[in-house]
């Protein structure tokens, strides 16, 4: 039986309560009759033999590119850059796509007699990965053959010695790049395309760039003109990245792009109920829901995090394509949409979403309030094509515990951003104007980014900009079940129950609003017609 496509459920009297994530907890909420629930398509079948598929892709590149083997030669400088810890979500069960692809690339390089090979995690301004995380992404063989010899690097956007400026685009955008990558005869980029935003020219133009480059597209103006940034043809973020990417194509190293897509098989079998539609739950699903929800509500926050962050997702590869960046990415996007796209008719007054425990920036970490804002208003809100699921001046009701909690190692500048910046203003433009520079240039944050495992000092700003399109579009944001003080600091309203939130939304959307729930994760992309 082939997997069922995405589905928009119209809630009626017989509809059972719907599953909502609330960070590290879960709940079932009864939605009003007439509400809609958008379910993602079921997981597409995985590629039976990924190694074979990878080999095939490497040997049969698309676009204007020769097969990989023909690009490799003895004495060459080869750099393999790969996506960092932010992908995929949750981290996938071994072997990771990156491991499979890189092993295949390395065997071809060995065959060609290439001995100058360096691996670089394309961190952009993300935190350095730990050895354990690198080992998980790359596998023991790759890790042990590179790490001990200093050949497994993590991109350092603040290392002046190892950043080169390639030039400026015709829009005056600085194009900086990792020096090793720039000076290579071939740069192979290995990606995992979880959401439509990932991949393409963004891989290199952002992943291996510096703050001086990234600031040209990671800013409030660009983000407000990216409608959405998940839809590259309507995304200013991508337009800028593509300009940079094309500049690199002309002036930088030769790039061989390898992109992979995953299916939405997101949770291990014991959590199968998370992916099933509620009216189809059997007894086992019900029992596992109740035991999970109960044990989560009874555990300490540390225990919950430990358990949840140890989940490795059974995502499987659905496609792999290699060759020239733009051609590859076009095909990749097709494959991503095949898995995630759901057609939705018309906008809604209220969009509801239950946020899971994990987002791109808190893998093995803590989802702090700023990340809550980013995951909901940045990511979930923007998972649309054409127009947002919620109408202009509509309301978003978000379910999350929103604890006043931060990971001290990963998010030090977030702590200060929350304490010092958001306490003064929530306005993205003001924040950008008055605070960004000082955080971005702060030597202590730079020190922590470079030597510890901290996100760059400017990163919390980007999280806020990510949400700026939604903040402008919505008239109210309500968080259900959050820490009221933390929610208030974000500039949102806090409600203790869904009903309270509905009451609060009433003066914005009237007594009888339309409601649409995004049933994520697994991820879905709504094409609103």
């Amino acid at each position, binding site marked *: 039986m082939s997997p069922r496509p995405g589905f928009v459920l119209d809630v009626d009297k017989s509809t059972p309560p719907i599953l909502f994530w609330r960070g590290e907890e879960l709940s079932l909420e009864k939605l009003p009759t007439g509400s809609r629930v958008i379910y993602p398509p079921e997981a597409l079948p995985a590629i039976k033999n990924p190694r074979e598929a990878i080999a095939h892709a490497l040997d049969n590149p698309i676009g204007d590119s020769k097969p990989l083997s023909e690009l490799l030669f003895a004495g060459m400088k080869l750099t393999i850059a790969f996506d960092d810890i932010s992908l995929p979500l949750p981290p996938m069960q071994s072997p990771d796509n990156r491991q499979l692809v890189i092993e295949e690339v390395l065997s071809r390089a060995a065959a060609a007699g290439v001995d100058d090979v360096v691996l670089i995690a394309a961190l952009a301004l993300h935190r350095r990965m730990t050895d354990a995380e690198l080992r998980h992404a790359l596998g023991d063989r790759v890790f042990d053959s590179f790490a001990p010899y200093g050949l497994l690097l993590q991109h350092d956007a603040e290392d002046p010695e190892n950043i080169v400026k390639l030039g400026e685009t015709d829009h005056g955008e600085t194009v900086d790049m990792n020096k090793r990558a720039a000076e290579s005869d071939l740069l192979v980029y290995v990606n995992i395309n979880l959401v439509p935003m990932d991949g393409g020219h963004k891989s290199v133009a952002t992943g291996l760039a510096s703050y001086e480059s990234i600031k040209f597209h990671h800013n409030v103006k660009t983000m407000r003109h990216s409608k959405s940034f998940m839809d590259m043809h309507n995304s200013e973020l991508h337009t800028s990245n593509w300009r940079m990417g094309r500049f690199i194509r002309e002036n930088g190293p030769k790039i061989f792009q390898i992109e992979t897509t995953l299916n939405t098989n997101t949770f291990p079998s014991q959590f199968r109920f998370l992916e099933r539609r509620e009216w189809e739950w059997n007894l086992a699903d019900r029992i596992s829901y109740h035991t999970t929800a109960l044990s989560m509500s009874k555990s300490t926050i540390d225990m919950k995090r430990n358990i949840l962050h140890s989940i490795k997702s059974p995502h499987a590869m659905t496609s792999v394509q290699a060759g020239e960046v733009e051609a590859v990415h076009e095909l990749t996007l097709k494959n991503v949409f095949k898995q995630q796209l759901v057609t939705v008719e018309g906008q809604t007054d209220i969009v509801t979403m239950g946020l899971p425990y994990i987002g791109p920036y808190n893998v093995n970490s803590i989802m702090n309030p700023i990340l809550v804002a980013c995951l909901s208003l940045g990511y979930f809100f923007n998972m649309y094509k054409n127009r947002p699921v919620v109408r202009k001046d509509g309301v978003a009701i978000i379910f999350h515990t929103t604890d006043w909690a*931060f990971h*001290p190692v990963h998010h030090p500048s977030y*702590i200060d951003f929350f304490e010092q910046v958001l306490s003064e203003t929530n306005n993205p433009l003001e924040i950008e104007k008055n605070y960004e520079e000082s955080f971005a240039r702060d030597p*202590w944050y730079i020190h922590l980014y470079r030597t510890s495992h901290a996100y760059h000092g400017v990163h919390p700003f980007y999280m806020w900009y990510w949400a700026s399109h939604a903040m402008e579009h919505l008239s109210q944001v309500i968080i259900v079940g959050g820490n009221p003080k933390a929610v208030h600091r974000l500039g949102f309203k806090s409600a203790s129950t869904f009903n309270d939130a509905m009451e609060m939304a009433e003066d914005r959307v009237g007594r009888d609003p339309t409601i649409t729930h995004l049933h994520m994760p697994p991820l879905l992309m709504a094409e609103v017609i």
Partner: protein
Amino acid sequence: MIKEQLKNKKIAITGSTGFLGTALTERLLRSVPECQLILLVRPTRRLSAQQRVEKEILKNDCFDKLRKELGSKFDEITKSRITAIAGDVSVDGLGLDQKDAKILASCDIFIHSAASVSFDSPLDSAVNVNLLGPVRVAETLKSLSQEHKKPLPHLIAVSTAYVGAGHHGLSPEVLVTESKHMCLPDWREEVAAAKRMRSDTDTLSRSVENLAKFAKMAREDLGAPGTSLLAERAEKHRQDFIEDTLVELGRKRAQALGWPDAYAYTKSLGEAALCESKGDLRVSFIRPSIVESSLESPHAGWIRGFRMAEPVIISYARNMLKQFPGVPEGVIDVIPVDLVTSAIITVAAVGPEKNDKPAVYQVSSSVRNPFRYGTLVNLCEDYFTKNPLYDNKGQPIAVPTWTFPGRGKVQAQLSQTVNILEFAEKILTKVPLRGEMAEFSADIEEKRSLAERALSYVELYGSYSETEARFPMDNSVKLYESLPDEDKKEFCFDPLTIDWPYYVTHVHLPSVVKHARAKTTPGKSVSLSREERARKIILNPEPKLAVFDLEQTIINSNVVESYAWLATRHLGTGPKTRLAMGLFAEGMELLKIDRRDRSDFLRYFYRRYEGAPAAQVKKDAWELFSDLFITRSYPKAIARIREHKKLGHKTVLITGALDFIVEPLRPLFDEIVAVSLGEENGKFNGEILTTPPIGEARAIIMEEMAAKLSLDKDHIVAYADSTSDLPMLEAAGIPVAVNPEPKLAAMARKRGWPIERWPRVPGGPKYLLAVSRRQLGASTILPTLDIKAE
């Protein structure tokens, strides 16, 4: 007419910086415009007699009225009428130089009001001032008169009505030497005994057992802040022991002879001694009872200093004295200060005509216009119910209702409370507490000290509220009646004029409340507390040296954990657990060494690094930085350091931790002072290269740095968490206690040091003992796996 009688008279006064003396000086200046004053004032280390007169007497609000009357001429007139001479009644010959002696020789009237008025003075100092003082005055006046060929002045000795406190019933205005109901020992023997007591007690304080006891007490107070502070504290305990013993000896001796305390006892003997040594001097005794705020002059409610009844009243209003002894139907003898000055001036003006037997004038209310103790308590209760004081949270304080149990019962209850709290406090300071628990322990200490204070009030003043003695003032009334009406009005000292309820409610209590600077309005206090003021200075842009301790100040971790983390970095689970358990088992032993001497502890502990590969450990330290330091850091501490840096302050880390471990913190600090380990052939040898920066060493390092930057003490901010950093904190102008342990918390509160409560980051990971969570498959690099103490 008194003004006429005192015209052009030279009046010498001792004790003019005191409550009564200031009132007297002002009264004479204002009401007797044509007399000259000679103020005999003891110079202090910083102020001369003249400066004390200007600063401590003339600046007092007592002179507000006169200042207003004289306007711009105030300075000129006071200068022309007052001659300040340097003298000291506790020294033979009053410590006068030739010039001053000549000035004093010219006086017509000498009013001796200097006294040690404290009820709990040590025996010998009470004897020296109260007993020997009058004798010295008499001897000096006699010899000056002979030397300068001047007539002897009239000596007015201010004594106390309570010389007769031992009486049940009336205590008449007769000389103590003539009293039938007084056991008066030979004063010379008492003087000799008091001197002996001082030296005997001193000897006793130096016994082996006592010296050991003081050292132990110092350690209990301070922990391990280094030798010099401990020595200083132990010496203070020894001095306190001597003083306390002499206070107790004084009280016991007085009580054995029938007086309530050393004050009344020494005053009585002082009268006797003066009678004996007065020679041809004309002497009058003025005996006021309990002198309190003025009825009218210079203004209603004027008072100086926090005296006997005031602390009791304020403690009552703050609900800190739940009970107080006393007989409600008994009479409490209080007299406003202006009545006493009037009496003195009258006696000075009228004077004894010839060298007769000294006259005695009591200025007291208990017979002439008795005021019941119960009435006083009721008036206080009413007053503070209507006008409550407010606690620091802005809540009104309800006053207790006193039920007048006996003194014994109140004392027993309070002693019990003190004992229980002391016990709890002892236990709490033994446990390693932090944060809220530590402050709870500081709360207990505060409660204990309040209970102790209450107990001391009961012990000191209880006898005054229970006294059965009454003090008639027949002589005084007779003198008063003899005055012309004008003087009666101007220099009234008849207590009949006092309307007690009015005096208490509208004069005395408002004045006491004002003087206590107690909070009388609801809401948060507007004025900044000492702590808040200090806070404001910390982050102003003036150049500063900001010095930080590491453990518990910036991070919630310690050297043992750093070691454990590094040692387990390359270990499998089994040996990792064994090492952790071993350190746990050793914990108490390590804590003990640490408490005894931090330096010893570090030397002992760092030996474990012997044989470890230096390069690898230093590399691992960078991961430790993330995994242990940043994870366990206090974000507010880091934010504070960064704020200092932003303001251009010099930031310094002084720590007993190893240099390579704190190296990653380098960008936060302009300078890091840490411990270095010796290396041989690429391996650590376990030896410390320099003296660890601990205790006094920290203070010295800090002061040297400040000196280099030409910054004085006021520009040093020091942040630390425990009493072992006390030398550093004390050497800084702005000491800040960060997450203090109980002893430091209590100390910081008392001294008004800012206390910072910097929490770990909310939601950050927690674990009991730091062991590295990652392993790379290799075996341990720190070979000292056997961590049993040698």
